[in-house]
C-alpha cells in the first residue's frame, strides 16, 4: 500500500480532498468554546448537553437545527445566546448546557478508534511534564481524545505535532481541531511514522506513541526530541509490546524507563439500610455472661419486640427523634442504628469496572 508522505498543514493544503474539507469547514462557524472559557453560547460552538450521569451529547450549534433528546426536541436557536451552565427546559424534562472541556470531549467524542480515557490522559500529561510552551509529538492521532488534552495543557505558547497513518482519521481530526478553534496549536500530518519517521529534529519536549509497533518509531522520536532532553511515553495494551519497547528505549539511551498502570474505581454514594436481624425474645439467661457489652444486644433486641408496630406507621422524622433517646450510649461514629435497621452512607464499588486500558511506559532522554 502507498503511504502519503506529504504534510497537510492546515493553512496551506490545496489538494482536491481538502477542498471538500474546506467546504465542510466553511459551512460551520469556527468557535472558541474549546480554547477558552466564555460566558455565552454562540452559533458554531460545540456544546455538551448534560442529561444525566454518563448521558451526555456533544452538539455543534447551528440555527435551524433541532436535537432530539430523551426529554424531547431541543432547538439550537433556543440555546444560542444562553449562558453556559444554564438549565434548558425540554418538553419532557430538563438538561444543562455545558461548555466542553477536554475531559467532557473525551467522554462524548465520536469514536474512530480505541481512545485514551481521562485517567490515562491525566497520567500522561503529568508524567510528560506538559505545561504551556511544551512542544509535543503524538502518533497516532486516533480520535483526537488525548490531542485535545495535550493542546489544552500546552496552549497558548506550545505546539502539538500529531501524526496519523489512516487518511480519513487524519482529515477528520484536522477538521475537528479547526472547528474547535484550536488550529494554531496543532499540526496534523497523515503519515506512517513507523515507516517514514517523524521528519522532525530537536523540537520536542515530549513524545507520545500509541502504535502497535512503537519501537519502529522510537529512533525517529529520539531525533525529534530537543537536545536538552525530554520525556517519552508509549501506550500499549499488551505486555509484549511493553517488553520490546523498554528494551528498545534502553538501547537508544533513554533512562528512567518505567511502566505503570492506573485504574480508577468510582464509588456510587448511597444510603444503605441494612436490616438488623430479630434474634427473638431473650430467655432467662442461665449462666454468667462475661461480656461487658451486652447492652447493645439487649437494647437492640428489646426494642425490636416493643417497637415493631410503631415502626410501621412512623415516618423518618419521628423515627429518628425516638432514635436519639434509645441510641446505644456508646460514641458511635458510623451511621445510625435504629431498632431494626442500621443506616449508613457508603461508597458502593462497581460490579464491573475497566480492569485494563493499557500500560504506560515512560522514559527520559537526558542531554547527551
Amino acid at each position, binding site marked *: *500500500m502507498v503511504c502519503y508522505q506529504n504534510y497537510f498543514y492546515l493553512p496551506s493544503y490545496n489538494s482536491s480532498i481538502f477542498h471538500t474539507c474546506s467546504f465542510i469547514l466553511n459551512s460551520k462557524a469556527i468557535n472558541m468554546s474549546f480554547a477558552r472559557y466564555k460566558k455565552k453560547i454562540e452559533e458554531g460552538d460545540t456544546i455538551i448537553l*448534560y442529561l*444525566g*450521569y454518563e448521558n451526555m451529547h456533544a452538539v455543534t450549534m447551528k440555527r435551524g437545527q433541532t436535537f432530539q433528546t430523551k426529554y424531547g426536541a431541543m432547538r439550537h436557536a433556543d440555546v444560542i445566546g444562553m449562558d453556559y451552565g444554564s438549565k434548558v427546559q425540554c418538553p419532557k*424534562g*430538563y438538561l444543562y448546557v455545558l461548555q466542553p472541556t477536554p475531559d467532557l470531549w473525551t467522554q462524548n467524542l465520536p469514536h474512530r478508534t480505541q481512545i485514551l480515557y481521562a485517567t490515562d490522559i491525566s497520567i500522561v500529561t503529568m508524567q510528560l511534564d506538559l505545561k504551556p510552551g511544551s512542544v509535543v509529538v503524538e502518533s497516532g492521532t486516533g480520535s483526537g481524545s488525548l490531542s485535545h488534552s495535550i493542546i489544552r495543557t500546552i496552549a497558548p505558547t506550545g505546539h502539538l505535532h500529531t501524526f496519523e*497513518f*489512516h487518511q480519513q482519521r487524519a482529515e477528520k481530526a484536522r477538521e475537528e481541531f479547526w472547528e474547535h478553534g484550536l488550529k494554531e496549536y496543532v499540526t496534523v500530518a497523515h503519515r*506512517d511514522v513507523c515507516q517514514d519517521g517523524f521528519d522532525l529534529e530537536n523540537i520536542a519536549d515530549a513524545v507520545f506513541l500509541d502504535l502497535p509497533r512503537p519501537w519502529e518509531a522510537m529512533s525517529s522520536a529520539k531525533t525529534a526530541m530537543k537536545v536538552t532532553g525530554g520525556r517519552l511515553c508509549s501506550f500499549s*495494551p*499488551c*505486555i*509484549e509490546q511493553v517488553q520490546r519497547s523498554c528494551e528498545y528505549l534502553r538501547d537508544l539511551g533513554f533512562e528512567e524507563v518505567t511502566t505503570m*498502570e492506573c485504574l480508577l*474505581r468510582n464509588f*456510587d454514594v*448511597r*444510603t*444503605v*439500610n*441494612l*436490616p*438488623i*436481624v*430479630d*434474634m*427473638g*425474645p*431473650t*430467655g*432467662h*439467661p*442461665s*449462666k454468667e455472661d*462475661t*461480656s*461487658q*457489652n451486652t447492652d447493645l*444486644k439487649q437494647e*437492640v*433486641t428489646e426494642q425490636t419486640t416493643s417497637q*415493631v408496630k410503631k*415502626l410501621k406507621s412512623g415516618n423518618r422524622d419521628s423515627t429518628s427523634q425516638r432514635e436519639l433517646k434509645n441510641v446505644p450510649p*456508646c460514641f458511635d461514629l*458510623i451511621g445510625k*442504628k435504629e431498632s*431494626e435497621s*442500621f*443506616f*449508613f452512607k457508603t461508597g*458502593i*464499588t*462497581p*460490579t*464491573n*469496572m*475497566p*480492569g*485494563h486500558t*493499557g500500560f504506560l511506559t515512560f522514559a527520559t532522554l537526558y542531554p547527551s
Partner: protein
Amino acid sequence: MASDTSAAGSIPDNLSTQHIIKEGDQVILKKGKNIKVFQIKKRRQVWLEKAKFTLDGTIGHPYGTTFEVKNGKMIKVEKSILPEKEALAEGGKDNRDLLDQDSNQKLTRDDIEKMKKDGIKGKEIIDQLIENSSTFQSKTVFAQAKWIKKKKIKHLLEFTILKPSARLLCEMHHTKNPSRICFMRVDSLAQILSRGNVRAHSTVAVVDTCMGLVVGAVMERLGGFGKVIHFHQGITPVRPAMDSFDFPAEILNNLYSYPLDRVNSIESDQTKPDISSGTKSSNGAACVEKSPGEISSQSFTEKLEDVSTPSQETGEDTSAQGDTAKSVDMSTPSQETTSNVENTEDGADDINSQEIPGCSENMEIEEEDKPVKTDMEQRKRKGIDRETNRQLREQKIQEARDVILEKNIDCLIVACKFHPTPIVLALLKYVAPSRPIVVFGQYKEPILDCYEYLRKDGGMVNYRVSEAWLREYQVMEMRTHPVISMSGGGGYLLTATTVAKSDTPK
C-alpha cells in the same frame, strides 16, 4: 513407585461410579464463563443460550466431557489436541485501509438463525461467516483469531458437564445473581474458608443468607467429618445453592439448622411452641416497608412456606440489592443520580437473565423432582401433616441447640444480609478459645462497626479488616494483558482469633 499411606490412592481409581453422569445428578453446564446447574432428567427439555435441548445424551459419559447441541440433543465432542490453535489465513498488516461499513458481513442474522434451525454445526456456520466476510482477509492475524473466537463463543453450542463444586457454584451465582449471595466473589469465599481454618473434624457455625452457598462450601471442606450449624432466617432454612452441591446423605447428616430468631433463647431450656413465625413476619413486614428491595426475598420465603414452590430464580430478584441501596438517596431524581454504578450492575444482571430465558424455568424443574435428600424436600411430601412436620423440625432444632450449648464451636462464619454486629456478639460466647471467626460483608461500614464493637467487647486478638482485589489475565501470544473488565469489589472481611476471656493469668 511406592506409597506408604492408605489414602495416597496408588490404586488408579478409574471411572468409578461417581465420575459418571447419571440420571438425577445435579450437573453444571459450562460454556466459557456461562455456568448453569441442571438436574439430569431424561426427556426433559432445557433452555440455555437460546437453544432448547435434552440432556439425555450425557448420561453414561464421564464428568468433564464436552457436548455439542445438535438437533436438540447433546452429542459428545471429540476434541483435537490443540483446541486453541487455529489455522489462520494470511492476514493484512494493519487496519489503515479498513473503512467503517455496516455491510462487511453478507450473511444476515436470519440466514444464521436458519442454519442453526437446520441443525448445521457451529463450526460450519463459522466457516460460512468467514467466507461471507469482506474484511476477514485484510484483518491482521491476531484480529482474525479474535474474530473467530468471538464468533465461536456466539455460535458454537458446546457445553462441558461438570460436577458442582464450591468454586463453580460461587462463580455461577456471582455472575447471575450476585445480590443473592451478598456479592461474594469466589476469592472472598476462598478466604472465608482458609482464614476460618475450615477442615475435617471441626464444628462450624455459619450465619448464611447467601442461598446456603457458604454452608455448602463449608460442608464440602468438612467432607463428612465434623458438624455444620446453619443459622438461618425464617422458620426453615432455604439454601438452593447448597442443594446444588448434590451432597450424599452421609454428608447432609452433619448439617444442623437453627433459626436466627431463636438465638436469644438458646440458653433458656424450654422447647417452645413455634410462635416465632409471628415475630418473624412482623419483622419481615417492617423490612418491606422500609426497603422495597427486600420484598422479593421476603415474599420468596413466604411463597416457600405457603405454596411450597421454590421458584426463587426469578429475574426480578437480581436487582433487589440495587433497590435497597437506592432507597434513600433520591433527593434530585430528575437530573442527577450518579447511579451509573448501580445501574450498570442491574443492567448486567438483567442482560444475564434475559440472555438465558430458561433460567427460572429450569431451576424449577431442578427443584421439583429432586430425590429425597434435604430436610426441606422431605417436608414437602404431601402425606406428612403440618404438626408432624413441626415436631420433626423442633427436634432438629434441639439437636442443633445441644451442639451450640457445648460452647465448643471451632469457627464462626457470618455472611449475611443483616448487620453483623449483634449476630457476632450474640454467638461469640459459643465459640471455643483460640479459634478463628470470619465476618463477610458486601459493605465496608458494617464490617468496621463490627470490628469496633468486638474490640470493645474484648476476648479476641489478631484482628484483620481487609478487601481483596482480584485480577484475571489474558495470556496469548502478543496479546497478554489484564482482562479488560474486572470486578470492582468482592466484599470485605473481618477476621479475628478468640481467646479465653476471663482466664486467670498463669
